[in-house]
């Protein structure tokens, strides 16, 4: 990881267009999937996808190559989403990120099938897949980072800007919510 990350950091310092093109290609699916899971909306995920890469171009000099590039990328994407939510809903960062709150990092109406739910249902008729869309975004996010992106818990704490204990507790709750959703129970 070290050499690859360092060479990305050097390229970003120079705003190397070839490198940016390659990174966009390389990480397009993972970043879009992450954004879909946290925003629950395809159009919005697309907007944030583009804004994230603009931010990568502008703030590339801040990436030092000491951590995984994807962890830095997801942190940028997440901050953009939270900033947007904050201006949209005038909520505090704590409200948006605390799973104990009523609507943590949740743009879609939980009672109706979310666009994510619909996208997953369209993609596959299996109810197991569609049920993923029922899980609150705050838990989906940690599940995606841990089990799809395979980030370490420490890296996740960096992306989410929360303590390790919070990451763990969200993961345990998320895992339980996921299991519950798969069984057709209430995911909360």
């Amino acid at each position, binding site marked *: 990881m070290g050499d690859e990350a360092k060479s990305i950091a050097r390229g970003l310092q120079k705003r190397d267009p070839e490198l*940016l093109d390659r990174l*966009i290609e390389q990480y397009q699916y993972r970043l879009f999937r992450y954004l879909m899971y946290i925003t629950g909306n395809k159009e919005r995920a697309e907007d944030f996808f*583009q804004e994230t890469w603009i931010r990568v*171009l502008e703030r590339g000099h801040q990436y030092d190559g000491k951590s995984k590039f994807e962890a830095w990328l997801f942190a940028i994407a997440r901050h*953009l989403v939270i900033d*947007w939510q904050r*201006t949209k809903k005038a909520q505090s960062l704590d409200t948006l990120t605390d799973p104990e709150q009523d609507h943590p990092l949740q743009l879609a109406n939980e009672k109706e099938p979310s666009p994510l739910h619909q996208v997953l249902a369209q*993609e596959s008729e299996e109810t197991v897949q569609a049920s993923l869309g029922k899980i609150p975004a705050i838990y989906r996010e940690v599940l995606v980072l841990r089990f799809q992106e395979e980030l370490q*818990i420490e890296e996740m704490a960096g992306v989410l800007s929360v303590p390790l204990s919070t990451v763990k507790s969200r993961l345990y709750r998320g895992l339980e919510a996921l299991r519950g959703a*798969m069984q057709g129970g209430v995911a909360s």
Partner: protein
Amino acid sequence: MSEKVHERALQLIAQARVEGMPESESAWLRTHLETCDFCTEHALQTDRALRALRTASIPLPDGLASRTQFRVRLRAQELREREPQRRALWLACGLSWIFGIVSAPYVWRLFAWFGERTGVPKLVWELGFGLWWTIPAVFFLIVVLMEKLRQSDEPSRIRQSR
């Protein structure tokens, strides 16, 4: 079997998948699962759920990467064009600071002379000199604030109407 035993087993099932667990706990869990259908089913359900999460796919919008690459290139070009202006601004900032330092003794004398000529109290012209000194600092502050404002403006570019 007591409730606490099942509770421990369920905790370990989750722990094994979230952060891993020591071999001693793992051995205990294996022994428990051999005799407990309820916990075995729970472990299977958890694994099924994780497998589904790992294999869940989301279709990528057509041309997302190429549209993004195009936007990023445009922005890069914008930044490149703006770079000489920014450099000139920072240079002007630095020069004004250097000029302020070099000219300070002369300006001090000028203020003193002006104070004597007009009969302004010493404290007033000294204050005037102090204010004159803050001009490069204020200019610098304005430049920094403008930069910050420009950078924090990005989220508002995202379609607000959605």
